[in-house]
């Protein structure tokens, strides 16, 4: 059994420290995913991540061992994000706000990517992040985003194409 599997088993039996361990283990990936989805809104991403963990605790009995725990968490996070987006009727962020990545931490390329990602549709952003940055297979990503495999693949393709155009425009502007 995996380390996650053991912790889940203990948490299901009511061991709160086991669940704490799961929170500590997965918080970074979950928050980074939500940070990208929310276009760099740190406080909101953390609120959603917290909600995700609270929901996961309540629904732990529903977790089936046939997938990864982080995949299950990301699925809850995605559905929480969609609810929040509908509630707030989000407007896209202004270019200066989008992707508030600290340039000291990465290269200018990465900053460009985050800014470009903030301009593509959230579902495309999520699909690209899951398949490219987080390394999920297409079927896994489709399950996380609760959509048919074909739809997921077209989101990935469309998102990549939009990004390519955006990055190209940016390069032209910079030159």
């Amino acid at each position, binding site marked *: 059994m995996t380390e996650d599997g053991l912790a889940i088993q203990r948490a299901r039996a009511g061991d709160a420290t086991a669940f704490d361990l799961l929170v500590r283990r997965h*918080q970074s990936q979950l*928050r980074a995913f939500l940070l990208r989805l929310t276009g760099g809104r740190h406080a909101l991403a953390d609120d959603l991540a917290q909600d995700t963990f609270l929901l996961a605790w309540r629904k732990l009995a529903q977790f089936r061992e046939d997938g990864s725990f982080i995949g299950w968490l990301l699925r809850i996070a995605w559905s929480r994000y969609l609810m929040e987006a509908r509630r707030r009727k989000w407007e896209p962020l202004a270019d200066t706000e989008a992707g508030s990545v600290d340039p000291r931490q990465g290269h200018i390329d990465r900053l460009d990517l985050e800014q470009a990602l903030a301009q593509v549709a959230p579902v495309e952003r999520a699909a690209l992040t899951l398949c490219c940055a987080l390394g999920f297979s297409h079927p896994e990503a489709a399950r996380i985003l609760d959509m048919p495999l074909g739809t997921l693949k077209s989101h990935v393709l469309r998102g990549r194409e939009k990004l390519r155009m955006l990055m190209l425009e940016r390069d032209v502007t910079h030159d």
Partner: protein
Amino acid sequence: MTDNLDRLLAQPLAEIPDNGFSSRTSALLELQRLRRSRFLTEIYAGLVLLAVLVLPFTQAGSALASAASTHAGTALIGLATAAILLMSLLKRPAKIHLAI
């Protein structure tokens, strides 16, 4: 261009330092658990109170009272026994409530 984009997209997401996030989440979870236990205890206590108040006026209450008067003396003892039995069935949430 496409190669560069693929390379950028494939970069793992930046590690986010915990900075107390896990502790805050755990504290919230604990609070949620306590609230739930408290809520359940209040519900159970309400049910017990209701039973104690209503039972004497029902057939079951009369039967219990007569059995109690036969076996242990008074109807009050019978009701108290019933209440204690009920409380012991709901022992766990009541304990948590007392701990709060």
